[in-house]
Structures are given as structure tokens and as C-alpha cells.
């Protein structure tokens, strides 16, 4: 069975592509056969984050328009045997995507024995975002603990519950998960940032991961190496935990609290 997971958020810049790349790598590291697809037609970026931008010959739109085969367009990752990237088109506009075309690509990937298809959604709620979520079995909703991101993600939850194939079929709908990024336990402790529990309570979702704010994310994108592959980083550990939870394992949340300060530090500042 091929499972289709959409990584979505509504708001831009919250970490969808970083999350898509890391979840895809994490699943592939566990031996799963994974295709990660960039749905942001016209604003291709997944290839840069994955570090394969110079190897893009054919893209997702070429496959949909029958200008090449799926095999020709799938870029095999150099680090992980079972990981493939399907880049977005940089020159076409988003109308080049069609629902039938997307379905045909997914069916072909399923026939090729892929375990997971990760759909990296564009920001917004237009066609690209709609098609990225339409055939999904599960959704990872990426949220920053900040008002506009939380509100936009609630809008996305509404669309997942009504404008997807699973919702239209009435067979339980899309399973939704919350993934918090840029989380700062220090700012949560000082009351400047909403906590995991606050966001969880507002949106009513289960938490699949909490990724701490870190300079490692920028360094990873600079290098074109998905941050999960930086084994020294807490961000990598947080994404590994999220992958484990996606696979049904029970893993306690890490990196959500600051180490406790002693009595003197609290009284006299620090």
C-alpha cells in the first residue's frame, strides 16, 4: 500500500519544504521507498533543499503533460538508495497541474512499489495547494507558534475536511497531524510564545512533532543537505521522532522545555 502524505500549512515560510525533505529522508533511512514531490509550480525550491537542483532535467509538469516518462523525471537521491525527488516546473504556471494528471502519477508510483508519497504543498489555498492535498491519506500541518500561522492552518484543516478525495468519499477523511516548527522553549517559559499545549488545544490536533528554532536549519538549506541528516542537531532528532510517530511508534516529546533554573538564578536574574 502506498501512503500519500501532504505537508501543508496555509501560511508561507513556516517550514513546509524543510519538513517535507526531512520526513522523506527519515522514512527512506528506515528503508521505505519514498517519492517527495514539489507542488509549488513556478516557485520550485524542494530541489535546492534536497541538494539536487543541478540534476533536474524533467519535472512534474513534463510527466503530467506526457513529455517524458515518470522514470525519467524521478531524481534518485545520492545519499539514500530508496529516495526519489520529483521537482516542480520552474517555467509553467500552476494551471499546468490537473487532477487527472496528478492521479495518474500517483497510480504509477504505487505500481512502482513506493511506500510513501510526500507532497510538498505551496503556501496559500489555490490550485497547487488544493491538488497537493486532494489525494492525501494523511496531512502534516506545519505551524509556527504565532497567531497568523495558527489561524491559516485552521483554514487548511477546514479544506482538508471538505475539499479532499477522502472527505468527498466519506471514508473517514484525511488523518491530520500537527507539526510545530521554530519552537523556542525559552520564549514559551517567559510567556512570549504559545506552548505546544496552547496550539494543540486551539486546533484540536495530535502532535506529530515539535522542532526547535535553530540555526542548523539555515545551514542545512545553504548546503543542500536536509537538516535531518545532520546527526549533531536537535532539529534532526526532533524530525527523527516525528518520523517514528508517523510510523505509529510512541515517542515522548523532546526539546519542549528549558532546563530548570535554580533558586538563585530565579531570584537574581540570569
Amino acid at each position, binding site marked *: 500500500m502506498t501512503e500519500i502524505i501532504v505537508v501543508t500549512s496555509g501560511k508561507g515560510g513556516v517550514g513546509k519544504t524543510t519538513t517535507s525533505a526531512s520526513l522523506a529522508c527519515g522514512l527512506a533511512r528506515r528503508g521505505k521507498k519514498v517519492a517527495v514531490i514539489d507542488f509549488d509550480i513556478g516557485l520550485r525550491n524542494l530541489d535546492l533543499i534536497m541538494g539536487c537542483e543541478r540534476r533536474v532535467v524533467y519535472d512534474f509538469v513534463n510527466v503530467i503533460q506526457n513529455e517524458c516518462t515518470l522514470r525519467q523525471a524521478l531524481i534518485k537521491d545520492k545519499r539514500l538508495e530508496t529516495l526519489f525527488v520529483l521537482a516542480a516546473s520552474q517555467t509553467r504556471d500552476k494551471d499546468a497541474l490537473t487532477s487527472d494528471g496528478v492521479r495518474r502519477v500517483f497510480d504509477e508510483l504505487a505500481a512502482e512499489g513506493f511506500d510513501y508519497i510526500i507532497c510538498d504543498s505551496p503556501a496559500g489555498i489555490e490550485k497547487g495547494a488544493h491538488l497537493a492535498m486532494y489525494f492525501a491519506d494523511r496531512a502534516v500541518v506545519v505551524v509556527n507558534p504565532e497567531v497568523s500561522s*495558527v489561524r491559516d492552518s485552521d483554514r487548511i484543516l*477546514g479544506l482538508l475536511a*471538505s475539499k479532499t478525495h477522502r472527505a468527498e468519499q466519506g471514508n473517514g477523511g484525511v488523518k491530520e497531524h500537527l507539526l510545530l516548527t521554530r519552537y523556542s522553549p525559552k520564549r514559551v517559559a517567559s510567556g512570549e510564545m504559545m506552548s505546544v499545549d*496552547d496550539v494543540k*488545544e486551539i486546533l484540536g490536533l495530535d502532535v506529530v512533532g515539535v522542532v526547535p528554532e535553530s540555526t542548523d536549519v539555515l545551514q542545512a538549506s545553504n548546503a543542500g543537505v536536509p537538516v535531518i541528516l545532520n546527526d549533531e542537531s536537535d532539529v534532526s532528532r526532533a524530525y527523527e521522532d516525528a518520523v517514528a510517530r508517523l510510523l505509529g511508534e510512541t515517542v515522548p516529546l523532546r526539546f519542549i522545555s528549558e532546563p530548570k533554573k535554580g533558586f538563585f538564578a530565579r*531570584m537574581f536574574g540570569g
Partner: protein
Amino acid sequence: MGLLALFRRTPSSANVAKERLRIIVAQERSARGGPDYMPLLRRELLEVIRKYVNVDPGAVQINVERDGEHEVLEFSVALPEKAR
């Protein structure tokens, strides 16, 4: 954070954010899934009522309630004191 912070009792900005979101999300969720014509229906009904009684826009409530197989359009208007 020093001694003073221990006695400070103003709500944190995170709490303010949480309260604001709780309200707006609840409001947007209740509007969601309703028929598309609801905002227009609400406006036109209000115009008709205002020909006869000067009611406040906020005094008109329209809801679609789901009751098993049926959908019930619920409509209520709070009339001002003097109109009675």
C-alpha cells in the same frame, strides 16, 4: 528576570494570543461548512426586516443546524424594546 518579575501579574503576550485565536477560530469554524448563500441571505433578510423595524445588524442570527438527516435553518431576530 529578577525579583520584580515574581510579583508581576499582567497576562503574558502568549496568553493574549491564545485567547484571541480561541475566539477567531471558533467563529470561523462555525461559519465553515454552512451554505454559500448564508451571508447574502442574512443581509437581505436584515434589509426586509429593517423596512418595518429598526433592528441592529447584530440582532439577526442565522444558523444551519444538522439534526440527523435533516438540516434546519434557524433564524432569530431580537426586536428592540420600543418596537413592541
